[in-house]
């Protein structure tokens, strides 16, 4: 099984997959605590329209992804909160973007494989140059989150007091959404548009059900994301099934029992029996 490591495309997959997993897990932690997981999925659909449009006009799909997702993030930040949080509004825009992407693909007279790779991930087909680009963007996300870490957490859990303490809550929200756009763009390379959720949200959601200590939750999310990615690539390299399928299955397969069993664990914080209210 491990003989596949001699191939450079497998090495590329592992390198790119690893750095993406770390960035996705960290960003996913904040997506989960801010309740923006659906927005993450919506952005991936918008990205799909951008990627398909890019293919249609002959430029690299990642550029289309980035332009559309970052643009959508900025627009989302500017529109009113009431509109932004209506699931109907998000759903309508998201499915329209999907339809637009399908139109672009059908107009494209080239190989259908490009469509397939955007929708389902292309990690086994990337070059060493792609690895470098992916690593740069992922590092940007990680560094960006590192800088925003404390005020972002503060405003996620406690926005009233954060604002009173001088934290720029609104600006942080915009900056975060732009980081989400970047993360969606890199995660798409590994698992594709349709399954971005499994890498962005799965590990972080699982970790947050297992621990309420932020540092531990982030480390656990990274560990899970790396595990899913490595196992997924290995299994895909040795079978004919796609990487994204394995990652999605692992992500769901681990989350489900944790979710079902965790309410019983959750009550075991260190509370004194003699506590007075």
């Amino acid at each position, binding site marked *: 099984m491990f003989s596949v490591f001699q191939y450079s495309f497998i090495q590329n997959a592992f390198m790119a997959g690893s750095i993406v997993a770390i960035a996705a897990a960290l960003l996913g932690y904040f997506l989960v605590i801010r309740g923006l997981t659906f927005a993450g999925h919506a952005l991936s659909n918008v990205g799909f329209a951008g990627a398909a449009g890019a293919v249609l006009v002959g430029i690299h799909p990642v550029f289309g992804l980035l332009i559309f997702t970052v643009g959508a993030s900025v627009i989302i930040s500017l529109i009113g909160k009431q509109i932004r949080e209506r699931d109907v509004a998000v759903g309508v825009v998201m499915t329209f973007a999907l339809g637009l992407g399908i139109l672009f693909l059908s107009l494209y007279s080239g190989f259908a494989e490009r469509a397939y790779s955007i929708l389902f991930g292309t990690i086994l087909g990337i070059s060493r140059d792609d690895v470098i680009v992916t690593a740069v963007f992922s590092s940007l996300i990680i560094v960006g989150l590192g800088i925003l870490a404390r005020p972002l957490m503060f405003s996620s859990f406690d926005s009233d007091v954060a604002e009173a*303490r*001088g934290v720029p809550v609104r600006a942080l929200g915009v900056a975060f959404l732009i980081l989400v756009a970047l993360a969606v763009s890199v995660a798409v390379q590994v698992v594709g548009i349709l399954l971005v959720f499994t890498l962005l949200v799965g590990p972080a959601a699982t970790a947050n059900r297992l621990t309420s200590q932020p540092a531990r939750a982030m480390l656990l999310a990274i560990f899970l994301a790396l595990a899913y990615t490595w196992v997924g690539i290995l299994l895909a390299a040795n079978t004919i099934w796609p990487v994204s399928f394995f990652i999605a299955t692992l992500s769901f397969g681990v989350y489900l029992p944790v979710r079902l069993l965790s309410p019983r664990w959750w009550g075991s914080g260190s509370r004194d029996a003699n506590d007075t209210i």
Partner: protein
Amino acid sequence: MQELKIHDPVIVLENVDVRLGELSILNGVNLSIGAGELIVVLGPNGAGKTTLLKLLLGLIRPSAGLLQVLGRTPQRGNQAIGYMPQHRVVEPETPIRTRDLVGFGLDGHRWGIGWPTRSRRERIDRALKEVDALSLADSPVGLLSGGEQQRLMIAQALLTDPQILLLDEPLANLDLAHQQEAVSLISRICRTRGVTTLLVSHDINPLLQVTDRVIFLARGHSAIGAPAEVINSEILSRLYGLPVEVAKVMDRFFVVGAEL
């Protein structure tokens, strides 16, 4: 800028107006609050109580008049002011511990990741101990009762050793027994630390024993003074612009004819 002398008032409002477009929220408000006072802010909904807190926090600016907090114009992010907002429902699965949430009060506003040092942990433990919540330090916040959550928000507000404490409806969502405990806690903190405390409430009665003075806001107008000076039929009728009757029964105030 002069040095703040020991008897200078900590909060000063002179003829302060706050207008939002056409709407006048506060109208010619005059207040002077001294260091260490425990003041209760009363009034019906929409009277401007939260607006007053936001003015002191530097989140909004007066449309007219003079406003000074600790001798200066209020700025956002003043570490000398501790703030406890109105209680919000916290879901049980919220993935953060008491000590982490309280810790935001110390350095949550600073960029970067921050390194957990022993002194930081000790400061948080001290604040939790002061509100009798040390045993809750490692518990997920969502599992705490409403009263416990209020206590940790007070601990969070105390972490920077503020000179002013602003509490927005700390007694809401608490039953009578727990209200008394909360009142004792707040009063103890105010007196031992000498921190000027402004407390917004819907009901003066649980607080009568500990209140120094009362600010009553209605229709954007204000009156300040000892409880009996302010909560009477004459003053309240003037503020409300309607006939209001105040009855004192068993040392408690009951306001009839308007929402208190």
